[in-house]
Protein backbone atom coordinates (compact mmCIF):
# COMPACT_ATOMS: atom_id res chain seq x y z
CA UNK A 1 0.00 0.00 0.00
CA UNK A 2 2.85 2.34 0.87
CA UNK A 3 4.51 1.71 -2.45
CA UNK A 4 1.23 2.39 -4.17
CA UNK A 5 0.74 5.71 -2.39
CA UNK A 6 4.32 6.67 -3.06
CA UNK A 7 3.93 5.92 -6.74
CA UNK A 8 0.72 7.90 -6.78
CA UNK A 9 2.47 10.95 -5.39
CA UNK A 10 5.30 10.59 -7.86
CA UNK A 11 2.78 10.18 -10.66
CA UNK A 12 0.84 13.18 -9.50
CA UNK A 13 3.97 15.33 -9.52
CA UNK A 14 4.90 14.15 -13.00
CA UNK A 15 1.27 14.53 -14.06
CA UNK A 16 1.18 18.15 -12.90
CA UNK A 17 4.12 18.89 -15.13
CA UNK A 18 2.46 17.07 -18.01
CA UNK A 19 -0.72 19.02 -17.36
CA UNK A 20 1.17 22.31 -17.44
CA UNK A 21 2.92 21.37 -20.68
CA UNK A 22 -0.34 20.18 -22.21
CA UNK A 23 -1.89 23.46 -21.16
CA UNK A 24 0.87 25.29 -23.00
CA UNK A 25 0.01 23.38 -26.15
CA UNK A 26 -3.73 23.81 -25.77
CA UNK A 27 -3.77 27.54 -25.07
CA UNK A 28 -1.81 28.30 -28.23
CA UNK A 29 -3.79 25.81 -30.28
CA UNK A 30 -7.11 27.21 -29.13
CA UNK A 31 -6.30 30.69 -30.31
CA UNK A 32 -4.34 30.07 -33.46
CA UNK A 33 -4.67 26.40 -34.43
CA UNK A 34 -0.91 26.20 -34.19
CA UNK A 35 0.57 23.19 -32.48
CA UNK A 36 3.71 24.47 -30.87
CA UNK A 37 6.44 21.87 -31.21
CA UNK A 38 8.93 24.40 -29.82
CA UNK A 39 7.33 24.22 -26.40
CA UNK A 40 9.78 21.58 -25.20
CA UNK A 41 12.68 23.92 -25.77
CA UNK A 42 10.90 26.65 -23.84
CA UNK A 43 10.90 24.20 -20.92
CA UNK A 44 14.67 23.91 -21.11
CA UNK A 45 15.09 27.62 -21.60
CA UNK A 46 12.94 28.36 -18.54
CA UNK A 47 15.04 26.01 -16.45
CA UNK A 48 18.32 27.59 -17.51
CA UNK A 49 17.04 31.13 -17.00
CA UNK A 50 15.99 30.09 -13.50
CA UNK A 51 19.44 28.70 -12.73
CA UNK A 52 21.09 31.81 -14.13
CA UNK A 53 18.88 34.10 -12.07
CA UNK A 54 19.56 32.16 -8.86
CA UNK A 55 23.29 32.19 -9.58
CA UNK A 56 22.96 35.92 -9.96
CA UNK A 57 21.67 36.11 -6.41
CA UNK A 58 18.00 36.70 -7.08
CA UNK A 59 15.87 35.23 -4.27
CA UNK A 60 14.20 31.98 -5.24
CA UNK A 61 10.55 33.05 -5.47
CA UNK A 62 11.45 36.14 -7.46
CA UNK A 63 13.66 34.08 -9.74
CA UNK A 64 10.75 31.72 -10.35
CA UNK A 65 8.51 34.57 -11.42
CA UNK A 66 11.31 36.14 -13.41
CA UNK A 67 12.07 32.93 -15.26
CA UNK A 68 8.40 32.43 -16.07
CA UNK A 69 8.09 36.00 -17.31
CA UNK A 70 11.23 35.93 -19.41
CA UNK A 71 10.40 32.61 -21.01
CA UNK A 72 6.92 33.94 -21.69
CA UNK A 73 8.45 36.91 -23.45
CA UNK A 74 10.60 34.63 -25.57
CA UNK A 75 7.43 32.75 -26.50
CA UNK A 76 5.66 35.95 -27.45
CA UNK A 77 8.73 37.00 -29.42
CA UNK A 78 8.70 33.77 -31.42
CA UNK A 79 5.07 34.34 -32.23
CA UNK A 80 5.73 37.89 -33.38
CA UNK A 81 8.82 37.11 -35.44
CA UNK A 82 8.09 33.76 -36.98
CA UNK A 83 4.44 32.83 -36.72
CA UNK A 84 2.81 36.17 -37.40
CA UNK A 85 4.05 36.22 -41.02
CA UNK A 86 2.59 32.75 -41.49
CA UNK A 87 -0.98 33.64 -40.58
CA UNK A 88 -3.33 32.03 -43.04
CA UNK A 89 -0.93 29.33 -44.25
CA UNK A 90 -1.61 25.59 -44.03
CA UNK A 91 -1.30 23.56 -40.85
CA UNK A 92 1.64 21.78 -42.41
CA UNK A 93 3.70 24.96 -42.54
CA UNK A 94 3.05 26.00 -38.95
CA UNK A 95 3.81 22.53 -37.62
CA UNK A 96 7.12 22.47 -39.41
CA UNK A 97 8.10 26.00 -38.54
CA UNK A 98 7.59 25.38 -34.83
CA UNK A 99 9.69 22.22 -35.03
CA UNK A 100 12.53 24.19 -36.51
CA UNK A 101 12.14 27.12 -34.16
CA UNK A 102 12.55 24.49 -31.45
CA UNK A 103 15.79 23.30 -33.05
CA UNK A 104 17.10 26.86 -33.19
CA UNK A 105 16.20 27.48 -29.53
CA UNK A 106 17.93 24.26 -28.58
CA UNK A 107 21.09 25.29 -30.40
CA UNK A 108 21.00 28.67 -28.69
CA UNK A 109 20.57 27.10 -25.25
CA UNK A 110 23.54 24.84 -25.98
CA UNK A 111 25.49 27.83 -27.17
CA UNK A 112 24.89 29.83 -24.00
CA UNK A 113 24.86 27.14 -21.31
CA UNK A 114 26.67 24.22 -22.89
CA UNK A 115 25.71 20.56 -22.83
CA UNK A 116 26.67 19.58 -19.26
CA UNK A 117 23.86 19.08 -16.73
CA UNK A 118 23.40 21.46 -13.82
CA UNK A 119 21.42 21.12 -10.59
CA UNK A 120 18.27 23.14 -10.14
CA UNK A 121 18.41 25.32 -7.05
CA UNK A 122 15.63 24.66 -4.56
CA UNK A 123 14.64 26.58 -1.43
CA UNK A 124 14.43 23.24 0.41
CA UNK A 125 16.82 20.38 0.76
CA UNK A 126 16.48 18.69 -2.63
CA UNK A 127 16.70 15.14 -1.36
CA UNK A 128 14.49 15.70 1.69
CA UNK A 129 11.10 14.14 1.87
CA UNK A 130 8.22 14.11 4.28
CA UNK A 131 6.06 11.23 5.25
CA UNK A 132 2.45 11.51 4.19
CA UNK A 133 0.18 8.64 5.21
CA UNK A 134 3.18 6.40 5.33
CA UNK A 135 4.52 7.33 1.89
CA UNK A 136 7.76 9.21 1.39
CA UNK A 137 7.16 12.27 -0.72
CA UNK A 138 9.95 14.53 -1.91
CA UNK A 139 9.53 18.18 -1.09
CA UNK A 140 10.15 18.89 -4.75
CA UNK A 141 7.26 16.66 -5.79
CA UNK A 142 5.01 18.34 -3.29
CA UNK A 143 6.19 21.75 -4.48
CA UNK A 144 5.45 20.79 -8.08
CA UNK A 145 1.91 19.77 -7.23
CA UNK A 146 1.23 22.93 -5.22
CA UNK A 147 2.76 25.30 -7.78
CA UNK A 148 0.91 23.49 -10.55
CA UNK A 149 -2.43 23.79 -8.81
CA UNK A 150 -1.89 27.48 -8.05
CA UNK A 151 -0.96 28.16 -11.69
CA UNK A 152 -3.92 26.22 -12.98
CA UNK A 153 -6.30 28.21 -10.82
CA UNK A 154 -4.77 31.49 -11.97
CA UNK A 155 -4.96 30.33 -15.52
CA UNK A 156 -8.58 29.28 -15.18
CA UNK A 157 -9.45 32.72 -13.87
CA UNK A 158 -7.73 34.41 -16.76
CA UNK A 159 -9.21 32.32 -19.49
CA UNK A 160 -12.70 32.83 -18.17
CA UNK A 161 -12.47 36.55 -18.39
CA UNK A 162 -15.10 37.05 -21.07
CA UNK A 163 -13.10 39.16 -23.46
CA UNK A 164 -9.96 37.09 -23.63
CA UNK A 165 -11.96 33.87 -23.80
CA UNK A 166 -14.29 34.95 -26.56
CA UNK A 167 -11.45 36.68 -28.38
CA UNK A 168 -9.44 33.47 -28.41
CA UNK A 169 -12.36 31.46 -29.68
CA UNK A 170 -13.20 33.94 -32.40
CA UNK A 171 -9.58 34.19 -33.48
CA UNK A 172 -9.27 30.46 -33.65
CA UNK A 173 -12.39 30.15 -35.76
CA UNK A 174 -11.43 32.73 -38.38
CA UNK A 175 -8.66 35.25 -38.02
CA UNK A 176 -9.74 37.61 -40.76
CA UNK A 177 -13.29 37.84 -39.47
CA UNK A 178 -12.04 38.33 -35.94
CA UNK A 179 -9.85 41.16 -37.14
CA UNK A 180 -12.78 42.74 -38.96
CA UNK A 181 -14.72 42.74 -35.68
CA UNK A 182 -11.98 44.73 -33.99
CA UNK A 183 -10.49 41.84 -32.05
CA UNK A 184 -6.75 42.46 -31.69
CA UNK A 185 -5.71 39.14 -33.16
CA UNK A 186 -2.01 39.83 -32.83
CA UNK A 187 -2.22 40.69 -29.15
CA UNK A 188 -4.29 37.61 -28.45
CA UNK A 189 -1.75 35.39 -30.18
CA UNK A 190 1.02 37.11 -28.28
CA UNK A 191 -0.65 36.59 -24.92
CA UNK A 192 -1.36 32.91 -25.57
CA UNK A 193 2.30 32.37 -26.43
CA UNK A 194 3.31 34.29 -23.34
CA UNK A 195 1.13 32.08 -21.18
CA UNK A 196 2.46 28.96 -22.91
CA UNK A 197 6.05 30.07 -22.32
CA UNK A 198 5.42 30.90 -18.68
CA UNK A 199 3.73 27.60 -17.79
CA UNK A 200 6.38 25.72 -19.74
CA UNK A 201 9.08 27.41 -17.68
CA UNK A 202 7.30 26.40 -14.49
CA UNK A 203 7.02 22.81 -15.68
CA UNK A 204 10.66 22.83 -16.73
CA UNK A 205 11.84 24.14 -13.38
CA UNK A 206 10.00 21.50 -11.36
CA UNK A 207 10.86 18.70 -13.75
CA UNK A 208 14.57 19.38 -13.41
CA UNK A 209 14.57 19.30 -9.62
CA UNK A 210 15.81 16.33 -7.68
CA UNK A 211 16.21 13.51 -8.62
CA UNK A 212 16.67 14.77 -12.16
CA UNK A 213 19.12 17.42 -13.31
CA UNK A 214 18.72 20.15 -15.86
CA UNK A 215 20.34 19.64 -19.26
CA UNK A 216 19.60 20.50 -22.85
CA UNK A 217 17.61 17.32 -23.37
CA UNK A 218 14.86 18.29 -20.95
CA UNK A 219 12.76 19.35 -23.94
CA UNK A 220 12.13 15.74 -24.89
CA UNK A 221 9.82 15.49 -21.90
CA UNK A 222 7.43 17.68 -23.86
CA UNK A 223 7.23 14.95 -26.50
CA UNK A 224 5.94 12.70 -23.75
CA UNK A 225 3.19 15.21 -22.98
CA UNK A 226 1.78 14.98 -26.52
CA UNK A 227 -0.32 11.96 -25.63
CA UNK A 228 -1.90 13.99 -22.84
CA UNK A 229 -2.89 16.68 -25.30
CA UNK A 230 -4.51 14.17 -27.65
CA UNK A 231 -6.24 12.19 -24.93
CA UNK A 232 -7.64 15.35 -23.38
CA UNK A 233 -8.69 16.87 -26.67
CA UNK A 234 -6.58 19.38 -28.54
CA UNK A 235 -8.60 22.44 -27.72
CA UNK A 236 -9.80 21.56 -24.25
CA UNK A 237 -8.17 23.11 -21.22
CA UNK A 238 -10.06 20.80 -18.90
CA UNK A 239 -8.89 17.89 -21.02
CA UNK A 240 -5.25 18.95 -20.78
CA UNK A 241 -5.41 19.01 -16.99
CA UNK A 242 -7.31 15.75 -16.56
CA UNK A 243 -5.32 13.82 -19.15
CA UNK A 244 -1.98 15.26 -18.03
CA UNK A 245 -2.56 14.15 -14.46
CA UNK A 246 -3.98 10.83 -15.56
CA UNK A 247 -1.15 9.95 -17.92
CA UNK A 248 1.49 11.00 -15.38
CA UNK A 249 -0.09 8.66 -12.86
CA UNK A 250 -0.44 5.85 -15.39
CA UNK A 251 3.15 6.19 -16.49
CA UNK A 252 4.52 5.92 -12.97
CA UNK A 253 2.16 3.13 -12.06
CA UNK A 254 3.09 1.24 -15.23
CA UNK A 255 6.73 1.65 -14.32
CA UNK A 256 6.00 0.24 -10.87
CA UNK A 257 3.66 -2.59 -11.72
CA UNK A 258 3.54 -3.43 -15.42
CA UNK A 259 7.12 -3.37 -16.70
CA UNK A 260 8.29 -6.37 -14.72
CA UNK A 261 5.52 -8.62 -16.06
CA UNK A 262 6.37 -8.10 -19.70
CA UNK A 263 9.80 -9.71 -19.68
CA UNK A 264 12.23 -8.27 -22.14
CA UNK A 265 9.53 -6.21 -23.79
CA UNK A 266 8.83 -4.56 -20.46
CA UNK A 267 12.20 -2.89 -20.22
CA UNK A 268 11.38 0.84 -20.24
CA UNK A 269 7.88 -0.08 -21.34
CA UNK A 270 6.43 2.86 -19.40
CA UNK A 271 8.03 5.29 -21.84
CA UNK A 272 6.00 4.02 -24.80
CA UNK A 273 2.88 3.31 -22.78
CA UNK A 274 1.45 6.86 -23.15
CA UNK A 275 1.90 6.62 -26.91
CA UNK A 276 -0.05 3.41 -27.03
CA UNK A 277 -2.85 5.07 -25.08
CA UNK A 278 -2.72 7.98 -27.49
CA UNK A 279 -3.00 5.74 -30.54
CA UNK A 280 -5.99 3.96 -29.02
CA UNK A 281 -7.66 7.29 -28.39
CA UNK A 282 -6.99 8.53 -31.88
CA UNK A 283 -8.62 5.45 -33.31
CA UNK A 284 -11.67 5.28 -31.12
CA UNK A 285 -12.15 8.85 -29.93
CA UNK A 286 -10.16 11.18 -32.19
CA UNK A 287 -11.43 14.32 -30.49
CA UNK A 288 -10.20 13.18 -27.12
CA UNK A 289 -12.12 13.28 -23.88
CA UNK A 290 -13.32 16.87 -24.12
CA UNK A 291 -12.29 18.15 -27.56
CA UNK A 292 -14.85 19.77 -29.84
CA UNK A 293 -15.80 18.39 -33.16
CA UNK A 294 -15.66 20.88 -35.97
CA UNK A 295 -18.81 21.86 -37.80
CA UNK A 296 -18.55 20.94 -41.43
CA UNK A 297 -20.94 22.29 -44.01
CA UNK A 298 -20.48 21.84 -47.71
Amino acid at each position, binding site marked *: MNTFLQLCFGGLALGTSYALIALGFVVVYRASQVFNFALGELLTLGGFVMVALCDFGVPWPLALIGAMGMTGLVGAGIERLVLRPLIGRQVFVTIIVTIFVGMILRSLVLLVWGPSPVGMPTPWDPSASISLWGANVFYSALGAVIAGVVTLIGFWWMINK*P*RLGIGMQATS*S*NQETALALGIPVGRIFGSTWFIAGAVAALAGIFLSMFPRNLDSNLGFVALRAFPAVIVGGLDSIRGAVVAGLGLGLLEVLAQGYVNEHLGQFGHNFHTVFPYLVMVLFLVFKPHGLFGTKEVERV
Partner: protein
Amino acid sequence: MLEVTNLETVYHGVLRVLRGVSLTVPDGGVVALLGPNGAGKTTTLRAITGMLDIHEGKVTKGSITFDGHNLVGKHPEAIVRLGISTVMEGRRIFPELTVEENLRAGAFVAPPAKLNDDLDRFYTRFPVLAERRHGPAGYLSGGEQQMLAIARALMSHPRLLLMDEPSLGLAPKIVKDVARLITEISKDGVSVLLVEQNATMALELSSHATILETGKVVLEGASETLKADADIQAFYLGMGADKTSFRDVKHYRRRKRWLS
Protein backbone atom coordinates in the same frame (compact mmCIF):
# COMPACT_ATOMS: atom_id res chain seq x y z
CA MET B 1 -18.28 61.34 -42.85
CA LEU B 2 -16.26 58.83 -44.89
CA GLU B 3 -14.13 60.36 -47.58
CA VAL B 4 -12.08 58.28 -50.00
CA THR B 5 -9.97 60.28 -52.43
CA ASN B 6 -7.92 59.07 -55.35
CA LEU B 7 -7.24 55.71 -53.79
CA GLU B 8 -4.71 53.43 -55.46
CA THR B 9 -3.74 50.00 -54.17
CA VAL B 10 -1.45 47.17 -55.18
CA TYR B 11 -1.35 43.50 -54.19
CA HIS B 12 1.94 41.62 -53.85
CA GLY B 13 3.75 44.78 -54.89
CA VAL B 14 2.76 44.41 -58.53
CA LEU B 15 -0.92 43.87 -59.11
CA ARG B 16 -2.64 47.25 -59.33
CA VAL B 17 -6.29 46.91 -58.43
CA LEU B 18 -7.59 50.38 -57.68
CA ARG B 19 -6.54 53.22 -59.94
CA GLY B 20 -7.84 56.35 -58.38
CA VAL B 21 -11.14 55.64 -56.65
CA SER B 22 -12.99 58.43 -54.88
CA LEU B 23 -16.23 58.18 -52.99
CA THR B 24 -18.04 59.80 -50.09
CA VAL B 25 -20.52 58.46 -47.60
CA PRO B 26 -22.50 61.28 -45.98
CA ASP B 27 -23.75 61.15 -42.40
CA GLY B 28 -26.74 58.85 -42.18
CA GLY B 29 -26.73 58.06 -45.87
CA VAL B 30 -26.79 54.79 -47.79
CA VAL B 31 -24.27 54.69 -50.61
CA ALA B 32 -23.98 51.81 -53.04
CA LEU B 33 -20.74 50.63 -54.65
CA LEU B 34 -21.49 48.61 -57.77
CA GLY B 35 -19.48 46.85 -60.40
CA PRO B 36 -18.65 43.47 -61.90
CA ASN B 37 -16.36 40.85 -60.39
CA GLY B 38 -12.80 41.98 -60.09
CA ALA B 39 -13.65 45.66 -60.37
CA GLY B 40 -12.12 46.33 -56.97
CA LYS B 41 -15.16 46.64 -54.74
CA THR B 42 -13.90 44.29 -52.06
CA THR B 43 -10.45 45.86 -52.30
CA THR B 44 -11.97 49.26 -51.59
CA LEU B 45 -13.61 47.85 -48.47
CA ARG B 46 -10.36 46.22 -47.38
CA ALA B 47 -8.54 49.50 -47.80
CA ILE B 48 -11.11 51.27 -45.62
CA THR B 49 -11.07 48.62 -42.89
CA GLY B 50 -7.29 48.25 -42.80
CA MET B 51 -7.46 44.63 -43.92
CA LEU B 52 -5.35 45.10 -47.03
CA ASP B 53 -2.04 44.14 -45.51
CA ILE B 54 -3.18 40.69 -44.45
CA HIS B 55 -3.88 40.08 -48.13
CA GLU B 56 -0.43 41.35 -48.97
CA GLY B 57 -1.77 44.53 -50.45
CA LYS B 58 -1.19 48.15 -49.62
CA VAL B 59 -2.41 51.64 -50.36
CA THR B 60 0.05 53.41 -52.60
CA LYS B 61 -1.72 56.70 -53.17
CA GLY B 62 -4.72 58.66 -52.03
CA SER B 63 -6.35 59.14 -48.68
CA ILE B 64 -9.17 57.74 -46.60
CA THR B 65 -10.59 59.86 -43.82
CA PHE B 66 -13.38 59.16 -41.40
CA ASP B 67 -14.64 62.18 -39.45
CA GLY B 68 -11.30 63.80 -40.05
CA HIS B 69 -9.28 60.76 -38.85
CA ASN B 70 -6.86 59.39 -41.39
CA LEU B 71 -7.48 55.66 -41.82
CA VAL B 72 -4.58 54.71 -44.06
CA GLY B 73 -2.02 52.67 -42.13
CA LYS B 74 -4.29 52.21 -39.11
CA HIS B 75 -4.87 48.79 -37.59
CA PRO B 76 -8.23 47.16 -38.24
CA GLU B 77 -8.88 47.18 -34.52
CA ALA B 78 -8.38 50.93 -34.26
CA ILE B 79 -10.68 51.45 -37.23
CA VAL B 80 -13.44 49.39 -35.62
CA ARG B 81 -13.00 51.44 -32.46
CA LEU B 82 -13.50 54.59 -34.50
CA GLY B 83 -16.94 53.27 -35.39
CA ILE B 84 -16.62 51.42 -38.68
CA SER B 85 -17.95 47.89 -38.76
CA THR B 86 -17.99 45.36 -41.59
CA VAL B 87 -20.24 42.55 -42.73
CA MET B 88 -17.86 40.52 -44.84
CA GLU B 89 -18.71 38.75 -48.04
CA GLY B 90 -20.00 35.24 -47.60
CA ARG B 91 -21.29 35.96 -44.07
CA ARG B 92 -18.27 34.48 -42.27
CA ILE B 93 -19.93 33.66 -39.01
CA PHE B 94 -17.88 31.55 -36.60
CA PRO B 95 -19.45 28.16 -37.23
CA GLU B 96 -18.21 26.32 -34.13
CA LEU B 97 -19.23 29.12 -31.79
CA THR B 98 -22.77 29.46 -30.57
CA VAL B 99 -24.99 32.27 -31.79
CA GLU B 100 -24.49 34.12 -28.54
CA GLU B 101 -20.72 33.73 -28.63
CA ASN B 102 -20.75 35.14 -32.15
CA LEU B 103 -22.61 38.19 -30.92
CA ARG B 104 -20.28 38.58 -27.94
CA ALA B 105 -17.31 38.46 -30.28
CA GLY B 106 -18.89 41.29 -32.23
CA ALA B 107 -19.12 43.33 -29.04
CA PHE B 108 -15.40 43.03 -28.36
CA VAL B 109 -14.71 46.75 -28.67
CA ALA B 110 -18.01 47.87 -27.11
CA PRO B 111 -18.24 48.72 -23.41
CA PRO B 112 -19.03 45.48 -21.52
CA ALA B 113 -21.73 47.17 -19.44
CA LYS B 114 -24.05 47.48 -22.43
CA LEU B 115 -23.58 43.89 -23.55
CA ASN B 116 -26.68 42.34 -22.05
CA ASP B 117 -28.96 45.15 -23.21
CA ASP B 118 -27.60 44.80 -26.71
CA LEU B 119 -28.07 41.07 -26.71
CA ASP B 120 -31.68 41.45 -25.60
CA ARG B 121 -32.28 44.07 -28.25
CA PHE B 122 -31.08 41.81 -31.05
CA TYR B 123 -32.86 38.77 -29.71
CA THR B 124 -36.14 40.71 -29.80
CA ARG B 125 -35.38 41.89 -33.27
CA PHE B 126 -34.34 38.45 -34.56
CA PRO B 127 -36.41 35.84 -32.74
CA VAL B 128 -34.76 33.08 -34.77
CA LEU B 129 -31.42 33.94 -33.23
CA ALA B 130 -32.90 33.92 -29.74
CA GLU B 131 -34.30 30.47 -30.37
CA ARG B 132 -30.92 29.08 -31.39
CA ARG B 133 -28.78 31.21 -29.10
CA HIS B 134 -26.95 28.26 -27.54
CA GLY B 135 -26.62 26.17 -30.70
CA PRO B 136 -23.59 26.27 -32.99
CA ALA B 137 -24.01 29.03 -35.55
CA GLY B 138 -22.79 26.73 -38.31
CA TYR B 139 -26.14 24.97 -38.29
CA LEU B 140 -28.10 28.12 -39.09
CA SER B 141 -29.47 28.47 -42.61
CA GLY B 142 -27.89 30.90 -45.05
CA GLY B 143 -30.45 33.61 -44.37
CA GLU B 144 -30.19 33.24 -40.61
CA GLN B 145 -26.42 33.38 -40.86
CA GLN B 146 -26.68 36.63 -42.77
CA MET B 147 -28.91 38.08 -40.05
CA LEU B 148 -26.41 36.94 -37.44
CA ALA B 149 -23.53 38.47 -39.36
CA ILE B 150 -25.33 41.81 -39.56
CA ALA B 151 -26.35 41.72 -35.91
CA ARG B 152 -22.80 40.83 -34.95
CA ALA B 153 -21.41 43.79 -36.88
CA LEU B 154 -23.91 46.09 -35.15
CA MET B 155 -22.86 44.91 -31.68
CA SER B 156 -19.88 47.26 -31.76
CA HIS B 157 -22.19 50.32 -32.06
CA PRO B 158 -20.77 51.46 -35.40
CA ARG B 159 -21.58 54.76 -37.03
CA LEU B 160 -20.71 53.39 -40.44
CA LEU B 161 -21.55 49.89 -41.58
CA LEU B 162 -19.77 48.40 -44.59
CA MET B 163 -21.61 45.52 -46.23
CA ASP B 164 -20.00 43.29 -48.82
CA GLU B 165 -22.58 41.55 -51.00
CA PRO B 166 -25.21 40.93 -48.34
CA SER B 167 -27.57 39.45 -50.92
CA LEU B 168 -25.13 36.89 -52.32
CA GLY B 169 -26.60 33.42 -52.44
CA LEU B 170 -29.85 34.35 -50.76
CA ALA B 171 -33.39 33.62 -51.90
CA PRO B 172 -35.46 36.60 -53.10
CA LYS B 173 -37.56 36.51 -49.96
CA ILE B 174 -34.51 36.73 -47.72
CA VAL B 175 -32.99 39.40 -49.92
CA LYS B 176 -36.07 41.44 -49.21
CA ASP B 177 -35.65 40.90 -45.48
CA VAL B 178 -32.04 42.03 -45.74
CA ALA B 179 -33.06 45.09 -47.75
CA ARG B 180 -35.66 46.00 -45.13
CA LEU B 181 -33.06 45.56 -42.43
CA ILE B 182 -30.64 47.89 -44.20
CA THR B 183 -33.31 50.58 -44.39
CA GLU B 184 -33.99 50.16 -40.67
CA ILE B 185 -30.30 50.36 -39.85
CA SER B 186 -29.91 53.59 -41.73
CA LYS B 187 -33.03 54.98 -40.01
CA ASP B 188 -31.31 54.25 -36.70
CA GLY B 189 -28.64 56.72 -37.76
CA VAL B 190 -25.98 54.34 -39.02
CA SER B 191 -24.50 55.20 -42.40
CA VAL B 192 -24.16 52.31 -44.81
CA LEU B 193 -21.74 51.62 -47.64
CA LEU B 194 -23.29 48.81 -49.61
CA VAL B 195 -21.19 46.79 -52.04
CA GLU B 196 -23.41 44.79 -54.35
CA GLN B 197 -23.72 42.90 -57.58
CA ASN B 198 -27.45 42.96 -57.22
CA ALA B 199 -27.77 46.41 -58.72
CA THR B 200 -31.56 46.46 -58.64
CA MET B 201 -31.63 46.08 -54.89
CA ALA B 202 -28.68 48.37 -54.25
CA LEU B 203 -30.06 51.24 -56.33
CA GLU B 204 -33.43 50.83 -54.64
CA LEU B 205 -31.90 51.23 -51.19
CA SER B 206 -29.26 53.85 -51.74
CA SER B 207 -29.37 57.58 -52.22
CA HIS B 208 -26.08 57.68 -54.09
CA ALA B 209 -24.16 55.10 -56.05
CA THR B 210 -20.66 54.72 -57.46
CA ILE B 211 -19.90 52.28 -60.22
CA LEU B 212 -16.46 50.75 -60.49
CA GLU B 213 -14.98 48.98 -63.45
CA THR B 214 -11.43 47.63 -63.58
CA GLY B 215 -10.45 49.70 -60.58
CA LYS B 216 -11.78 53.02 -61.82
CA VAL B 217 -14.94 54.96 -61.13
CA VAL B 218 -16.93 54.98 -64.36
CA LEU B 219 -20.16 56.52 -63.16
CA GLU B 220 -21.51 58.09 -60.04
CA GLY B 221 -24.52 60.06 -59.01
CA ALA B 222 -27.89 59.94 -57.37
CA SER B 223 -29.41 56.48 -57.50
CA GLU B 224 -32.59 57.78 -59.12
CA THR B 225 -30.59 59.20 -62.01
CA LEU B 226 -28.54 56.05 -62.40
CA LYS B 227 -31.64 53.89 -62.48
CA ALA B 228 -32.79 55.80 -65.52
CA ASP B 229 -29.44 55.56 -67.28
CA ALA B 230 -29.63 53.45 -70.41
CA ASP B 231 -26.23 51.78 -69.99
CA ILE B 232 -26.97 50.88 -66.40
CA GLN B 233 -30.26 49.36 -67.44
CA ALA B 234 -28.62 47.25 -70.09
CA PHE B 235 -25.52 46.09 -68.24
CA TYR B 236 -26.48 46.03 -64.59
CA LEU B 237 -30.21 45.80 -64.24
CA GLY B 238 -30.69 43.27 -66.99
CA MET B 239 -33.77 45.12 -68.22
CA GLY B 240 -33.53 43.34 -71.53
CA ALA B 241 -34.27 40.08 -69.77
CA ASP B 242 -38.01 40.67 -69.76
CA LYS B 243 -37.97 40.51 -73.48
CA THR B 244 -35.24 37.99 -74.23
CA SER B 245 -35.36 34.77 -72.35
CA PHE B 246 -32.13 33.08 -71.26
CA ARG B 247 -32.99 30.42 -73.81
CA ASP B 248 -32.58 32.87 -76.65
CA VAL B 249 -29.42 34.59 -75.52
CA LYS B 250 -27.11 34.95 -78.46
CA HIS B 251 -24.25 32.59 -78.31
CA TYR B 252 -21.02 33.37 -80.02
CA ARG B 253 -17.69 31.83 -79.44
CA ARG B 254 -14.37 33.49 -79.44
CA ARG B 255 -11.86 31.05 -80.75
CA LYS B 256 -8.59 31.32 -78.95
CA ARG B 257 -5.23 30.15 -80.09
CA TRP B 258 -3.35 27.51 -78.18
CA LEU B 259 -1.37 29.63 -75.79
CA SER B 260 1.19 28.68 -73.19
